[in-house]
């Protein structure tokens, strides 16, 4: 019981994000005319890339930085993927691995510039973001490329479709209706994030973000932690790029889209309960942070125009409400400012 109490107290941001998501998604489900597994699939499809980019951003925010290159890196991997994932069979697998490696390598480069070049993360990644976008344009000056249709279809659908497409299995009943996107997320969380949190380096990332000086005094290997955080960020951004490639089936060096993903990733991190000052939070919160953002747009889609709420539910209002909700969420977190008794503590 006590463990649970601590778990909740230490992850208040995560709990709030989950709560907000449950409420918003419940509203969505209740308004949806014909909710079903296919809707979940569609939702997952729209949310996954943003979730992954948000996870990438989380890694850098945890160590007290900010990564402006997550969107461009996703775009670069998308363009790269539209080339290397264009084959069939085993070569696609190699292509996917190459994409992950590219993402991680670019993330590692960000880390090197920050650690050894002693440049602030936000500026270093502003510059590398431009470079990644340039490389993406170099690979795909115009949108194009076509990856294997069967592959793209099978891996962005549900378990049944995966089996049908490749003849691996037949109808698996309700189990087969489970979409693949949550499975991907669970795999990443279980295979990458949870083990990482339990390594000395993973904990070191939290230590560095919490107090770099104290971490240094305690003998934490600061450089290694930072490099790992950036590399993992690159890996997650790469995964986002891979999924995007499967989703649209081609490569597109879309600069505005890259910028939008970068900015939104910051919002997902904050809504997910990770402190922008570093040291607390995690990617699980970010998953729900991204889902909250997406749920808002889902809701606007299903409110009937003719209903009483119709006039506020115009899709044109959606960005406005997104912004307002974001502002309210972060301002609520600022309530402590008014309870501070020693004003000097505001400045630390």
């Amino acid at each position, binding site marked *: 019981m006590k463990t649970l109490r601590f778990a909740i107290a230490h992850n208040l941001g995560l709990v709030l994000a989950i709560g907000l998501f449950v409420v918003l998604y419940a509203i969505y489900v209740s308004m949806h005319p014909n909710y079903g597994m296919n809707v979940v699939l569609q939702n997952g499809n729209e949310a996954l890339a943003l979730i992954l980019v948000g996870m990438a951003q989380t890694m850098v925010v945890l160590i007290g930085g*900010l990564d*402006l290159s997550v969107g461009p890196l996703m775009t670069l991997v998308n363009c790269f993927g539209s080339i290397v994932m264009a084959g069939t069979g085993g070569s696609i697998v190699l292509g996917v691995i190459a994409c992950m490696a590219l993402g991680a390598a670019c993330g590692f480069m960000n880390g090197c*510039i920050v650690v050894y*070049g*002693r*440049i*602030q993360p*936000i*500026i*270093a990644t*502003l*510059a*590398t*973001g*431009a*470079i*990644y*976008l*340039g*490389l*993406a*344009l*170099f690979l795909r*000056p115009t949108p194009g490329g076509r990856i294997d249709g069967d592959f793209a279809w099978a891996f962005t659908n549900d378990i049944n479709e995966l089996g049908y497409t490749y003849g691996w299995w037949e109808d698996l009943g309700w189990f087969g209706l489970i979409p693949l996107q949550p499975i991907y997320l669970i795999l990443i969380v279980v295979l990458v994030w949870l083990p990482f949190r339990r390594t000395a380096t993973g904990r070191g990332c939290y230590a560095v973000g919490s107090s770099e000086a104290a971490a240094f005094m305690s003998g934490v290997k600061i450089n290694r932690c930072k490099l790992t955080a950036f590399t993992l960020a690159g890996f997650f951004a790469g995964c986002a790029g891979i999924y995007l490639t499967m989703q649209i089936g081609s490569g597109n*060096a879309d600069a*505005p889209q890259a*910028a939008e993903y970068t*900015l939104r990733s*910051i*919002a997902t991190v*904050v809504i997910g309960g990770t402190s*922008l*000052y570093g040291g607390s939070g995690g990617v699980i919160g970010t998953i729900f942070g991204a889902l909250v953002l997406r749920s808002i747009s889902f809701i606007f889609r299903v409110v009937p125009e003719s209903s009483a709420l119709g006039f506020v539910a115009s899709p*044109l*209002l*959606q*960005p*406005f*409400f*997104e*912004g*307002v909700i*974001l*502002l309210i969420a*972060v*301002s609520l*977190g*600022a309530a402590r*400012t008014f309870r501070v008794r020693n*004003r*000097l503590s*505001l*400045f*630390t």
Partner: protein
Amino acid sequence: MSLVSKIDKPILIGLGFIVLILAVGTVYTLSTQGTAVFLSPNYLMQQLHVGAFLGITAAGMMMVILLGHIDLSVPWTLAAGAMLATAIGGPLGALTCIGVGLTVGLVNGLGVAFLRVPSMIFTLGVNTVLLGLMVMLTGGHAPQSAATDLMLFLGRDRTLGIPHSVIVWALVSLTLVFVLTRTPLGRYMYAIGNQEAAAYLSGVRTRLVIVAAFVMCSLCAVIAGLALGGYSARAYQAMGDAYLLPSIAAVVLGGTNILGGQGRYAGTVVGALIIVLLQSVLSVMQMEEAFRQVIYGAVIIGMLLIYSRGRIVNA
């Protein structure tokens, strides 16, 4: 105390880099076309004209970066100002545009200074709200109305060959230099960027200073919006998006510390010129967009590496 030592090292390096860009470009044009187009007054004036929009935006951005903050709402402040100015039209439109700047600056400043929400996320939220408001207002389509006379005057027209937007940039620059170097406000801005607690304990009304900086930033953004709207003869949805990251880059290239407290205004002008000239020279050299982006990123990293190396030696 020679003049050289009074000028910041990043500014000198930046100026040197501008010369280098022009020299490389000129060698290229001389060898391919036999002309030194980059050194012609016309070309340079044209670059200043284009650079003014970035220069004005970056000037405002510098005010908040000096405090150790950042303003991500600049793109849609700029766009919203310009779009309202064209939609309403006439002098009232221009006044509305300035009003937008004031309001956005106040909201940002209040959120950051009084609620103490990190500026990064608060201004991001304000940006989204502005975007939403504009989408609501225009119904999601580009506004039909064309730039007003005032906007055309500011953004497109020239007097004696000098584009008015360059004059506006110069006026904005003079004002900000005056604020930064001659007024208590400027001194307080540097103080807060360096050590907010010490500024507060020195009896500085730190919250008002923060609000003032955000107001200056937003005002610069809407002024740039007016001029840019005139230059393109219309206002459009995403007109500010291309100015966010370059304005931050210009400030940092000019030697301003992204963590606040240090930097000279002249550096921001130099930084804006570097970005504009680099893009222009590379495109005249028929460099593909892909390479231009890569070079642009590499230049930022390269110059910051040079600056930071200098700092380590000094420390």
